């Protein structure tokens, strides 16, 4: 009956390790509002690098698991098939002030799993889409998904050492971006450059907020 994971407290299995699990990463007691931004982009485009370069904590990983336990039950009596799919996202954190905490989530690379994360874009202030000019076509699905979900976004061209330099106009054209969507160059490894990309997004959001208030 007993399992490792459901023993009552006092079993002592976590004793000693859990006394101060957060340590110096603890948030102030006054923190009461969590907000989030999404760093989206194709696999290997530098999402985690960007999250890491601005985060105040070592990036963490959150997971969601989906178990399709009933697949095939109807058609194959008595045969139980279980498929477990795990989708992982890296994220980091920036303390805005004593009340507000900003979280940055890197989307999972394979956008076909995004349905598992319906909550990811919901409530997000906006998204930075990182693109690599060597494989722009891999961003099409992500841009489409963002437009569908109505999440405001900007595009940041992550400059890789061996990437051919295109003008932002050329990239805009290749991605078929609407004129209102800002596009910037950035180096995701650099804190100041990643911060500037995030600021471009925030100023874009302010503009959208201004526009939505016009009569």
């Amino acid at each position, binding site marked *: 009956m007993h399992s490792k994971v*459901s023993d*009552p407290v006092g079993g002592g299995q976590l004793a000693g390790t859990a006394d101060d699990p957060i340590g110096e990463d603890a948030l102030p007691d006054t923190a009461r509002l*969590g907000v989030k931004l999404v760093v989206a982009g194709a696999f290997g485009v530098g999402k985690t690098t960007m999250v890491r370069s601005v985060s105040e904590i070592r990036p963490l*990983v959150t997971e969601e698991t989906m178990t399709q336990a009933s697949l095939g039950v109807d058609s194959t009596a008595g045969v139980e098939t279980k498929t477990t799919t795990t989708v992982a996202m890296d994220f980091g954190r*920036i303390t805005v002030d004593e009340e*507000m*905490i900003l979280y940055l989530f890197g989307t999972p690379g394979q956008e076909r799993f995004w349905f598992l994360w319906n*909550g990811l874009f919901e409530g997000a202030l*906006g998204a930075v889409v990182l693109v690599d000019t060597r494989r722009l076509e891999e961003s099409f699905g992500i841009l489409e998904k963002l437009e569908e979900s109505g999440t405001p976004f900007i595009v940041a061209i992550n400059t890789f050492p061996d990437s051919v330099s295109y003008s932002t106009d050329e990239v805009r054209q290749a991605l078929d971006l609407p004129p209102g969507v800002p596009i910037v160059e950035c180096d995701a490894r650099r804190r100041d450059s990643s911060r500037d990309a995030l600021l471009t997004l925030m100023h874009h959001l*302010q503009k959208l907020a201004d526009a939505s208030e016009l009569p």
Partner: protein
Amino acid sequence: MSDAPDWHEDSPERFFMITGGRAGHVEHAALGLVTLILSKAAPKPGMSLEQASVLRLCRSPLSVAEITAHLKLPFSVVTVLLMDLLSEGNVEARSPAPIPKSAMPDRDILRRVIGALQSL
């Protein structure tokens, strides 16, 4: 009987044990990845290890996402744990409902985030 079964870290069976088999799709709707959780009580005998761990983790406010990362449990499993702790008053959930998809973010939030980014 005291031998623990051969659990795989992320086996469905393990999650079933932790959540008592409840999926909790409806009831955890109010908990998002960035909802901040704060303990209101100390771990008590009879609690599961996971519940006790949440209470220790959340002695200062902590997001649901961070709780999932520290416990190495999926989001949906953690939300079930949290719903139990919430319903018994052992934790407080500190975020307003998520911003509706269509609504523009609050200007005050934007202004404060910009200020924080500028001082990075």
